[in-house]
């Protein structure tokens, strides 16, 4: 049996990877969270993950001195305020050295799981794993946006050093291959965090939930839009709640908000989901929760799903809110194949088999 570290830098890392972690533990492996410092720390991963390994425990004073010597010589030429240049570089380099010491220590793991490679912890962690011959497994984090690839090659950088990349569906695989990720690294496994059971609702009233994007990315007037939806729901016998984006730092909305830790719990308790360019839209579809895209009086937001799948309704004015009540007429017509091409419920056996095969090879 193997020692498997799951890197958790922020809470959503734990939420996305906890299912596969539990499943690997069930198969007899020793699975534990690995973390490192995040001085911004808006959502400390230490909140609720139990015992963990902290990479900084493996740092030395010499490491810290060498990082500071480097930063005191090197200028970061970027159009950002000075603080973020030195602060970010220091945090990245301390993480690099801490991981390096951990991965070369007696305590080193047999494999490492990361949510994705595109952050300041997991890029050096996956780089070091590759150099040291430790299998490292990355996952698709959320909805893939072609604009992110066009602008920044984000998909290309998602799996540079990892051994395998586990993705949600064939559509994702095609996008990663187009972006240059070697096909033999990609395994279509579905989204492991969705391997849940449907919960029982407590009453028969239909519950409408508006899953907000980060408000800085909102298309429209959030306050007025929410008020209009709330009024419609109140007058037509629906319960209504707003679900803020999990990264929304502080949001005071004068409506019922559902702030449960895990968005999947909210989805499973939702009858009709209102969304705007959101990973949640895909998660709702595969979990059987009908989805309506919201674009009141505005131009379309980036890469709306209804452009690809016309059976997904879009509401463009408050007058069209009546479509909420008609939803049951057309949502079931969306083919399962179309949904599964985008996202499947994670196959935990398949993921575990892949991980175990690579651990055995090493």
């Amino acid at each position: 049996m193997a020692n498997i570290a799951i890197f958790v830098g922020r809470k959503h890392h734990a939420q996305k990877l906890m299912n596969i972690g539990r499943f690997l533990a069930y198969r007899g492996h020793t699975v534990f969270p690995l973390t490192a410092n995040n001085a911004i720390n808006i959502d400390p991963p230490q909140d609720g993950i139990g015992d963990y390994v902290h990479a900084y425990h493996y740092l030395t004073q010499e490491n810290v001195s060498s990082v500071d010597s480097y930063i005191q010589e090197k200028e970061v030429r970027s159009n950002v305020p000075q603080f973020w240049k030195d602060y970010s570089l220091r945090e990245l380099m301390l993480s690099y050295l801490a991981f390096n010491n951990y991965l070369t220590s007696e305590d080193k793991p047999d494999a490492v799981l990361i949510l994705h490679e595109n952050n300041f912890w997991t890029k050096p962690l996956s780089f070091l794993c590759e150099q040291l011959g430790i299998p490292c497994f990355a996952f698709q984090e959320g909805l893939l946006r072609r604009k992110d690839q066009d602008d920044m090659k984000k998909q290309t950088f998602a799996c540079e050093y990892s051994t395998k990349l586990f993705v949600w569906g064939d559509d994702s695989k095609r996008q990663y291959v187009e972006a240059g990720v070697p096909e033999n690294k990609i395994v279509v496994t579905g989204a492991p965090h969705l391997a849940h059971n449907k919960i029982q609702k407590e009453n028969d009233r239909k519950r409408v939930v508006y899953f907000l994007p980060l408000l800085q990315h909102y298309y429209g007037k959030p306050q007025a839009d929410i008020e209009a939806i709330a009024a419609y729901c109140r007058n037509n016998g629906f319960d209504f709640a707003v679900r803020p984006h999990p990264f929304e730092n502080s949001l005071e909305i004068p409506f019922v908000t559902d702030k449960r830790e895990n968005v999947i719990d909210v989805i499973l308790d939702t009858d009709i989901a209102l969304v705007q360019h959101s990973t949640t839209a895909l998660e709702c579809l595969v979990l059987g929760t009908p989805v309506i895209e919201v674009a009141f009086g505005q131009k379309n937001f980036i890469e709306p799903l209804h452009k690809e799948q016309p059976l997904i309704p879009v509401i463009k004015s408050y007058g069209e809110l009546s479509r909420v009540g008609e939803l049951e007429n057309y949502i079931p017509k969306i083919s399962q194949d179309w949904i599964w091409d985008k996202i499947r419920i994670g196959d935990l056996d398949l993921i575990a088999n892949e991980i175990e095969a690579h651990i055995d090879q090493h």
Partner: protein
Amino acid sequence: MDTPYIFNNKKTYLILTDNLTSLVAGFIDSALVSGKNVVVVTSRKQVQEQIANNVGFPTFLVPIPPENDNKLFFDTNMPGNLEELEYKSFPLWKGLSIDRLRFWQVNNGLLKEFISKISFDTAVIDFDLLSPLSSIWEEIGQLIILKSQTLRTPEHFSFLVRNRERVEYVVTDKEMDVSYLSQADLQAKVWSVEKEFEPPIEKVYGLDAIYYDKRYIWQFNEYFDGKHLVIGNTRFPQAISFDRPSIELFPRCHPNAHVQVMPPNTITTPKRLIMFAYDEEVIDRISPKEVLIYDPYNVNRAVEMSVGDERVVRVING
């Protein structure tokens, strides 16, 4: 936007500031009194108005909006200008660009254009590292630095050391910064700010306290027997924080630490304050008799940051 034209041969200071501090106001005033040319630039409308109202001097407003062009970001940061940043064969930009720098990029083109059109001898900067004006500090020649809140963070210190050749001097409001700045071979000028007379009183101190911040979860766990907040044989019965999220997160991040973190104004000023990083503002606000800092491996550079501050009696960094 008009740019200033200066027709005499007097020394010209370009002052970049997004705050009206007493040091900024004092510097403008004394430069004018001594017959220097002064050009003041800010990116904040509110500061332009404050300087006009309080100092009586016109300020150029140069907006620096957030930059949202990710294609441009790709060209300049992936790797672009960051190509040479490498550490032990790891290309640092790969961990720095998408996840960090992208969120804070600014469009400082107008500021660069403005500065290119004026002739000045020395740039005087209000040392606010978070100001968007700071995005061009590395590119503007000789500097005079005016302290803004503090000089004592690892990021302030790195900038000072890296740029010491072009820093003429640093203006501070505290004598204790002289020895701190000498670590970077920098000259300090202490600008005394008149303070209201306070009659001497015998201060009464309460129990020792830990200053907690959610940034230091690891440091807390490294040093404390969580159950009783014990370091060595000493028990610390109370913990305080100015940061509301830190107060709320404490019991969830340290479930075995049976203590409540409270706002500092709910307890008597502690005789000894235990910290995990040097923080000048926190020490000034709480005003304990002594400060003890636990900074494992000197990750927060408490050794360097606390030099000259006699309130800090010990830094433990092993």
